[in-house]
């Protein structure tokens, strides 16, 4: 043991700063797990606040508003995942049909730009183009379609969130899938051509089956995050008019817990989300490991 420490001490020293900061900022907040069973009072603090058992959980589950945010979260996440994956895969396949490498890269570079723009700025841009007199509605009017209230109609709002997210992020998936497609052995295609397969058949029988494991892997990993419907995006786009369809778990926690000072409810909802997420992420990593031999570390 001592001998080992003598040999390994530089490693421990190097790790120390990161470990201390991670302990403070990632481990200490886990006392929320205890707070969820207390009637937390900032005056009494965390040691003296009275215990209340499962009362907080009973309280949040008796609130229809909370159940509604779970539904909204799952709805938005699910369709983001489905349309996000589909559009990335389809776009990567289409880009792959372009023979010039330069053009391919150029297009890929362009669609990847929105990914790096913050949701605050993106929300500003979306307000510009989606408002009643914005450019999208002007174009719709030219096509004799009634103007759409993208941001302020409760029934349209979730789709605005889903589509704008897919639009902002599909470039990332495209980069991943295109990288996977480019690494396919060209001999496979050559022998398919000899067998008389056209481009369509090559795509169907070679490209798609080879990238399928990566699609499955990305989807499984994304499923672990299904309770994150995108706080930054929703918070910057929504307003009280669309709470009924647009409020998600994270925005609910922030509004109720911090803006209205209801620490108990906020913490309990947060812990509920953390525990479910933890199970989902562990499960997704387990499945990813089984299916695609993927390891995080």
């Amino acid at each position, binding site marked *: 043991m001592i001998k080992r420490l003598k040999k390994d001490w*530089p490693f421990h020293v*190097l790790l120390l700063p990161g470990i201390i900061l991670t302990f403070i*900022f990632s481990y200490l907040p886990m006392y*929320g797990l205890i707070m969820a069973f207390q009637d937390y009072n900032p005056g009494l603090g965390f040691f003296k606040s009275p215990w209340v058992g499962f009362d907080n959980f009973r309280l949040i589950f008796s609130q229809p508003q909370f159940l509604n945010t779970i539904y909204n979260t799952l709805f938005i996440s699910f369709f983001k995942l489905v349309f996000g994956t589909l559009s990335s895969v389809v776009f990567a396949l289409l880009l792959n049909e372009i023979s010039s490498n330069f053009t391919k890269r150029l297009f890929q570079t362009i669609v990847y730009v929105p990914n790096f723009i913050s949701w605050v700025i993106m929300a500003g841009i979306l307000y510009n183009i989606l408002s009643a007199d914005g450019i999208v509605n002007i174009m719709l009017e030219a096509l004799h379609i009634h103007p759409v209230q993208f941001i302020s109609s409760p029934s349209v709002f979730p789709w605005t969130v889903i589509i704008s997210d897919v*639009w902002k992020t599909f470039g990332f998936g495209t980069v991943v899938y295109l990288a996977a497609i480019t690494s396919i052995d060209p001999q496979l295609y050559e022998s398919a051509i000899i067998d008389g397969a*056209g481009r369509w058949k090559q795509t169907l029988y070679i490209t798609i089956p080879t990238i399928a494991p990566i699609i499955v892997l990305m989807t499984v990993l994304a499923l672990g995050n299904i309770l994150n419907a995108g706080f930054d995006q929703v918070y*910057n786009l929504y307003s009280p008019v669309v709470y009924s369809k647009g409020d998600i778990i994270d925005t609910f926690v922030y509004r109720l817990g911090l803006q209205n000072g209801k620490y108990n409810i906020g913490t309990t909802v947060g812990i509920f989300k953390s525990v479910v997420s933890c199970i989902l992420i562990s499960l997704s990593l387990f499945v990813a490991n089984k299916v695609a031999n993927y*390891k995080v570390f």
Partner: protein
Amino acid sequence: MKYKTKGQKIFNVFNYIFIILVCLSCVLPLLNTLAVSFSSPRFVSAGKVYFIPKGFTLMSYEFAIENGKFLQAFKVSVIRCILGVSINLFMMVTTAYPLSKTTQRFAARNFYMTFYVITMLFGGGLIPYYILVTDLGLMNTIWALVLPLSCPVYSMVILMNFMRNLPPEMEEAGMIDGAGHFRILFSILLPVLKPALATVGLFAFVYHWNDWFTGALFMHDPQKYPLQTYLQTLLTNFRDMLRQSGSDYYTLLSRMNEQTGRAAQLFLGLVPILAVYPFLQKYFTTGLVVGSVKQ
């Protein structure tokens, strides 16, 4: 692939058209905002500005520069990025190096790795985090913007995989010459790892630059808002104004002035990201491919 049937030619035409349309959809909203920022509010309120400025004016930009709040917030963001990225890089390098060792070389490696992986799986939630940072007395200081985000585990894992993919001979040669681990890490490995450091460093920069929420959580003094948090308050004000404004001419006019002014500030907030984008693009695929492969 070389000779093409008629069907393939038709497909190619439609494929190009479709791809170009998608690309346009990614660029035009930005162009529209840019055009609005350079236009006179008169034309913007008439709904006449598309992708080319009408009644070209730099008024909105002058307004943004003269408006002390914008520059102040920009400055906070720059300081935050310099501080945040340096701390991130230091933490990532010092953590990734020991963790890139095998368990034979460093027995406690898996213990530390588990310590970090747990943080990826479970968190205490927003409110305990908020209470903690308040209790530490970090509220309203620049440290609240950098310390809680000091150890990004995902980037650390990418850097670790980069280190694992280096030829082991490099280190062995250092060992033979009598260099200790610190010398090996800082004088032998780091120079070779420049592309990897650029990758994770750029990610850290984009993260710090784009993050508005930490600022909104921990800064109660608007003077100390980083840029994105400040821009967020502009949006909120705009939303409130939209809700209140009726047909009153003056509110409408000020609203439109605000729209061009806001567009200018949004665009200025975007400039640093667009400036590093070519590098991001260059390093991203390598980061993705090399960093995610475990050997």
